[in-house]
């Protein structure tokens, strides 16, 4: 109960303070707003604008461009980070070649091996391969099969009887047709839930885009820069809280609508050896 209250109160306070006048907030941060000022959100949208150095010279990225960058980054990365382990685990789970076991072993070993501080090396390789400072570069870098979701998909594919694909093969279906018309539709719920969780994670991520695509800022990067703004009009708490809400509210809406799907995925059976 205490924990729930500790979550609700700051969020509610943040929302109420985001529509307060700056003078009113300075006067009292406790009191309810006397006037509701949605003007703060307009100012916050302007404050998100950030100057970046790109190959074509310095340019200003607006809030709406950041939304586009965020949607592209979050959707593309979520798709890659879901699709690649899905396809890899399907091959490992359903095809009987011994060499495929290596992929499963790689997943388990890499999950157990903590590698610290390879960011400088990642940056160097990204720059070398021309993947630095663009969104599609990050998509390619996110297309890894290792991680927990390989095991989630693997378990899902193992529960699908082989008779489904055998029956389709007898009817002359190719491997690709079996994958796209029979198997993927069977796991579409798992796929969409994982992709949704990943989308939310990438929407909120500012550490990776900040380092790997500095001239293609996302909303989260914009909020980060905005939160350390020294400008008088932008550093006012109600304006900054309005900026917070601009990043937070879309995800909160998704959560309210799809909470059962999200929570259901995370509570599926815990983790077993």
């Amino acid at each position, binding site marked *: 109960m205490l*924990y*729930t209250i500790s*979550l609700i109160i*700051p969020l509610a*306070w*943040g929302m109420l*303070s985001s529509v307060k006048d700056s003078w009113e*907030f300075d006067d*009292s*941060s*406790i009191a309810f707003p006397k006037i509701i000022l949605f003007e703060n959100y307009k100012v916050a949208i302007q404050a998100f604008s950030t100057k970046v150095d790109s190959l074509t010279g310095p340019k200003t990225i607006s809030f709406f461009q950041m939304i586009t960058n965020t949607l592209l980054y979050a959707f593309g990365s979520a798709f890659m980070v879901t699709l690649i382990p899905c396809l*890899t685990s399907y*091959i490992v789970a359903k*095809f009987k*070649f011994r060499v495929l076991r290596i992929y499963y072993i*790689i997943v388990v070993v890499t999950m*157990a*091996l*903590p*590698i*610290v*501080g*390879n*960011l*400088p*090396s990642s940056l*160097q*390789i990204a720059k070398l391969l021309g993947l630095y400072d663009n969104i599609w570069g990050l998509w390619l870098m996110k297309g*890894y*099969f*290792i991680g927990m979701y390989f095991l989630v998909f693997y378990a899902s594919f193992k529960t699908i009887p082989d008779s489904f694909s055998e029956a389709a*093969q007898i009817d002359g279906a190719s491997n*690709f047709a079996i994958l796209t018309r029979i198997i993927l539709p069977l796991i579409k719920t798992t796929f969409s839930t994982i992709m949704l969780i990943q989308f939310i994670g990438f*929407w*909120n991520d*500012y*550490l990776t885009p900040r*380092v790997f695509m500095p001239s293609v800022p996302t909303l*989260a990067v914009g*909020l*980060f820069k905005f*939160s*350390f703004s020294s400008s008088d009009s932008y550093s006012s708490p109600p304006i*900054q*809280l309005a900026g*917070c809400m601009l*990043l*937070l509210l879309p*995800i*909160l809406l998704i*959560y309210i609508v799809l*909470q059962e799907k999200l*929570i259901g995925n*995370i*509570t599926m*059976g*815990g*983790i*077993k*050896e």
Partner: protein
Amino acid sequence: MIGTTIGKKTKTLRNKKINDIIFCCGILLYPTVQFCIFYLGVNFNSLLLAFKSYEYGTGYTWSGFANFKAVIFDIFNTELLKISFKNSLSLYAITLLIGTTLSLLFSYYIYEKQLFHGFYKVMLFLPSIISSLALTMIFRFFVGRLYPELVKEITGKVVPGLLTAVKTRKSALIFFTLWVNFGITVLIYSGAMSGINESVVEYAKIDGANSFQKFIYIVFPLIFPTFTTFIVIQVVEVFTNQMHLFSFYGSGANYSLYTIGYFLYKRTSEAAIIEYPYLATMGILFSFISIPATFIVKNLLERFGPKDY
């Protein structure tokens, strides 16, 4: 006739095998190449960088173990790194002792389906879907502006914000780290508990076991693999956990608050190419510590933990 049929079948099977191989290779080509470049290649490059130094004009040259000597010297002699190490380890200890204990108790509460458990589930998941940056901003203003005002209203005392005062800022950051991660930990533990066979718990109830006895003798042993995984993950995070310092302070956190994770991220994001070898070496040395530590902790837990009979 039979020979022709068998010959056709063999040819069909061979063709099928070839098709399967082509299909598997087609699907696995990209993930394999990606893994080779961005996992094996990156980590191998990290290892190579550790043995190099960079000079403007000459580029990378081999420097042997010079970087290792420099990093080891700095770890034991630089105040900043000693503090970072200490903060990383104390954060781990507090997360383990307080965070894990509270998470287990709270998740057991949800598992026992006490009042409002459905509502709690929804609320517990909330911090993991809201941007940590947004949460840090709200928390920053909450403890920086609302808290001092509330204290003044109630007690008349003028106090600084929790994140500004030297005495309270570290505790406030640790509290925030625990607070943000609490929900998802509870949810995963309660998910593991919901996988326990109902009849096992029923037998315990019939035998007169109370809630505490059920937890100690039935529930905890059965969710021990999940518990082990979390403990191992926490060991892994000792050197990567930033304690949200970058969200709160950007590059300007006070030195007394540094963790190894914050130090590495901050230095790398601001680093010129000349610093990459030093930072890569530091990462490798910390990996050499965390890899065996992870296996030792896992083995100890498996050896001395409750057995699932």
